[in-house]
């Protein structure tokens, strides 16, 4: 409340004061009018009070006034203003002391009253402001109530509308459902009716057919006949045998036997295929295992040195397992016994391999950070350029040397012949001298060239070595990359699934894709892997001679530009030949038995010239 008071603006407070005054005035009881007047009398400024007082007590009515006052005072409990009467008749004397006392007491009382009044006024003020505040609050709350009520009504309205809509939609849905049901019923009823009618008609039709059959067939139709010059032998050479009642049962049994034989053969064939598939898969698994072991063996030392017991023992275990499993007899065992061993060991090794590869990967990434790779690439290009240049130079030098040698030889032979003749003839010694000089010069040159050549070859060897080192580096990097790429476990299971689903086809592409980067790898890096991949591609079941097909196909898809070849320039003057070429390139896969060669030459006379569409494939 106190706070509220402080907050109220002065206008309001003054107003409230006024109200207070007003209320205090109005609320004063009429009985207290007097006291108020008494109070007012204390204010000396009010003239009318004086007049009132003068009106109350005049010279003439002092006695009455005093007695009145006395009476009043006594009734209020003050001591009498008069002295105590000594006798009945005696006029009572005004006791001044008592008057003064009374006055004093009245004044004290007056002061007290004033104080009390003040208190009451302030309290009144407080209460008034409180009241005001409460009224304000009340008004506000009322407003709020009003708005919320309105809101509520709005919401209710909306709710009602939505509900209405919902009801409508429900109704619609129901209608639709009913409609659907109705339609379905209609369809069903129509279908049944249709089926019924169909059946009826079919029966009729069958009856008709039967009748027709009887009519047509039983009429001893002379026309239904076969004219044949003479009966021919059976295709299998056997004599035609027709069933008789006696042999029918045996025939039937034989047929049954044959049928079951065929079915059995089919199942056996399938089983064989599945077995083969299984064997191939096992082989692949084994190969992979071996490969892993071979990959892991170089760092086998490391973990042992590090006294890393777990990995070391695992590897040795794996090796033992491999030794066991590689025995031929193991392959004949059913899958359950081998599978667990094999898969477990492979899983272990795979884990090791993975961690190792991860380690390597980290190293590689470090190296990458050093920017080693970029430099390497550039230097490699430089290397290649340089080697090319040098080789070219060497070639040139060699040629030069060769020609010079030739010249020299010519010269020498010429010299020999000449000199002998010359010597014999004692002819021109000077020339001989000159020739000798030239000879020595040539020798000098030759020596120089030799030296140069040697230096060049040395440089070439150096380059070769550098290149080899680089190749090795690259190979190792590729290997890491590859190992990183493949996740054997996953692939394995996928393969299994694929094989079993359709034994013939397989994701050969993925395999070839994997094997591709390996082919680039030099043999000395990992001796196990290339063998494995080749077997992988070979081992795919039910794909006879598919590998080359795959190759051609991949070629076709990759180098679709190779079809460009088919473009034949319009300058070509022999369309016949053009056509042949075109067809030849298109259908390079066609195979034609050689036996027809002769026939072709014979019949080619009848062939007209081809008119082949040239096909410009982009």
């Amino acid at each position, binding site marked *: 409340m106190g706070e509220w008071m402080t907050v109220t603006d002065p206008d309001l407070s003054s107003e409230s004061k006024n109200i207070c005054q007003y209320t205090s005035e109005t609320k004063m009881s009429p009985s207290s009018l007097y006291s108020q007047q008494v109070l007012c009398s204390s204010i000396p400024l009010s003239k009318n009070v004086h007049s009132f007082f003068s009106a109350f007590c005049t010279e003439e009515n002092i006695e009455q006034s005093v007695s009145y006052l006395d009476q009043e005072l006594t009734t209020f409990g003050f001591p009498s203003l008069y002295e105590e009467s000594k006798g009945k008749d005696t006029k009572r004397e005004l006791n001044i002391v008592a008057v003064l006392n009374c006055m004093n007491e009245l004044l004290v009382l007056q002061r007290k009253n004033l104080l009390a009044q003040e208190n009451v006024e302030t309290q009144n003020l407080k209460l008034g402001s409180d009241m005001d505040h409460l009224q304000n609050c009340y008004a506000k709350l009322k407003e709020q109530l009003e708005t919320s009520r309105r809101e509520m009504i709005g919401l209710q309205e909306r709710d009602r509308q939505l509900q209405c809509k919902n009801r409508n939609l429900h109704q619609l849905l129901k209608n639709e459902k009913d409609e659907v049901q109705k339609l379905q019923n209609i369809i069903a009823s129509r279908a049944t009716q249709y089926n019924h009618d169909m059946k009826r008609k079919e029966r009729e039709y069958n009856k008709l057919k039967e009748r*027709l059959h009887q009519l047509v067939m039983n009429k001893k139709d002379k026309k239904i006949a076969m004219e044949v010059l003479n009966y021919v032998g059976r295709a299998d050479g056997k004599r035609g045998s027709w069933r008789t009642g006696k042999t029918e049962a045996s025939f039937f049994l034989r047929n049954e036997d044959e*049928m079951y034989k065929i079915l059995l053969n089919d199942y056996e064939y399938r089983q064989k295929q599945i077995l083969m598939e299984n064997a191939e898969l096992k082989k692949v698994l084994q190969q992979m295992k071996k490969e892993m072991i071979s990959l892991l063996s170089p760092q086998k030392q490391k973990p042992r040195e590090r006294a890393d017991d777990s990995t070391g023992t695992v590897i040795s275990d794996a090796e033992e397992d491999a030794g066991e499993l590689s025995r031929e007899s193991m392959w004949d065992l059913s899958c359950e016994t081998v599978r667990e061993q094999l898969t477990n060991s492979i899983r272990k090794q795979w884990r090791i391999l993975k961690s190792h590869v991860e380690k390597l990967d980290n190293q590689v990434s470090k190296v990458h950070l050093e920017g080693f790779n970029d430099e390497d690439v550039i230097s490699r290009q430089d290397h290649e350029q340089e080697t090319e240049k040098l080789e070219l130079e060497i070639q040139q030098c060699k040629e030069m040397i060769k020609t010079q040698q030739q010249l020299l030889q010519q010269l020498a032979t010429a010299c020999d012949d000449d000199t002998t003749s010359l010597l014999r003839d004692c002819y021109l010694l000077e020339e001989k001298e000159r020739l000798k000089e030239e000879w020595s010069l040539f020798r000098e040159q030759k020596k120089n060239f030799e030296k140069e050549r040697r230096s060049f070859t040395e440089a070439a060897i150096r380059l070769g070595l550098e290149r080899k080192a680089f190749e090795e580096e690259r190979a190792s990097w590729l290997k890491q990359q590859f190992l990183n790429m493949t996740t054997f476990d996953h692939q394995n299971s996928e393969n299994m699934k694929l094989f079993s689903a359709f034994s013939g086809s397989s994701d050969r592409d993925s395999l070839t894709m994997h094997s591709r980067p390996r082919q680039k790898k030099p043999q000395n890096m990992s001796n196990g892997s290339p063998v494995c991949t080749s077997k992988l591609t070979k081992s795919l079941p039910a794909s006879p001679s598919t590998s080359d*097909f795959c190759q051609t196909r991949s070629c*076709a898809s990759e180098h679709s530009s190779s079809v460009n070849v088919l473009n034949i320039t319009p300058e070509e003057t022999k369309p016949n030949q053009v056509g*042949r070429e075109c067809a030849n*390139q298109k259908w*390079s896969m066609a*195979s034609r038995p050689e036996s027809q060669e002769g026939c072709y030459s014979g019949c*080619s006379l009848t062939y007209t010239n081809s008119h082949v*569409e040239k096909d410009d494939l982009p």
Partner: protein
Amino acid sequence: MNFSEVFKLSGLLCKFSPDGKYLASCVQYRLVVRDVHTLQILHLYTCLDQIQHIEWSADGLFILCAMYKRGQVQVWSLEQPEWHCRIDEGSAGLVASCWSPDGRHILNTTEFHLRITVWSLCTKSVSYIKYPKACQQGVSFTRDGRYMALAERRDCQDHVSVFVCSDWQLLRHFDTETQDLAGIEWAPNGCVLAVWDTCLEYKVLLYSLDGRLLSAYCAYEWSLGVKSVAWSPSSQFLAIGSYDGKVRILNHVTWKMITEFGHPATISNPKIVVYKEAEKTPRLAPGRLAFPPPRAAAGVASPAETKYEIASVPVSLQTLKPVADRANPKIGIGALAFSPDSYFLATRSDSVPNAVWIWDIQKLRLFVVLEQLSPVRSFQWDPQQPRLAICTGGGKVYLWSPAGCVSVQVPGEGDFQVLSLCWHLNGDSLALLSKDHFCLCFLETEDRVGTAFGRPGDHT
């Protein structure tokens, strides 16, 4: 590529003998047998009426000529030209005739499918099979010719009978859970029979040779179902083309669906090669004009030459808006065929009539799409290698192989409209059939050219 001269033909009846040595063709009521290599006429047989169907016996010794209108079948022997045989079905009529796999029996279906008459050429015997069902593909022989499956209808219920072809004994008879059986086909290994229901219901049933139900497959309900079915030559896959424009491939182990090939009208995968046939602006090559003058003159009249262009993805193919209120709507997979090595599947969606989809079965994904300028009429795989021949009823034949594709104009006076084609057994020639002519197309092999010109083909 060379073309033979054009020969007369009627009724698109032109067939290579099973051994690939002979070629039989029909001109009205005459049957002409030619040597495949020289194309000289070896035999000429005259039938009683216009021939409507011809078929070689499996050993290539006989040819049957069916004249359905007359209800007669005539059989001719290649070894003894004077030998003849005539089968008359009389008033029963004739709607279909075929050889049994042994080449010594003829199965004639009478009108209204009253019965199938089995005529023997070895003995006088005739046997009848009653209640054959009139359906899309009601008879199927196993590849080894040992068994015949026949769809039957008895008492408003579909049945399948398996006969032993050697003595026409009934081996198995079982009813199928089909509403209205539409077709049956043996797997190439002869151990599984695929049975499919009418297009009103998607249902494919697989029965073992001994009549056990191996599996039933249903992809969806209510809407139109199976439209075409094909076994892969390895019997590993069963491809089912349906009216929803998808091909579903079942495997032979679990008979469950392996994959689903949709035929969207827009191709956005950059891995898929889309060959688009485009008209070539006529280039006047002086050499060509000079060398075969009659061809050039004919070329002026013939429609523009075309070539294949590799379209850059995304490609949207021309689609046909199906007419909803007609029966047999032009939607769904109307044709599908596996390549002989089972590596590829060629399909045609009837709502995209100009395109042939070729799927890679190894990777189970779309491989190539060929979009022709006109609707594809038929396609057939080379029996020896993955090579597809396509015709669109125009004057060109189209060939696709994994190496690429080519469009070849058929030479000849006037327009030669290739309506149908069939491969020779060894895949080095192709018979192209038009309404009343046919010609052979010889596909040169590498060594042939090499020997002919004394140098190998240029491979760069």
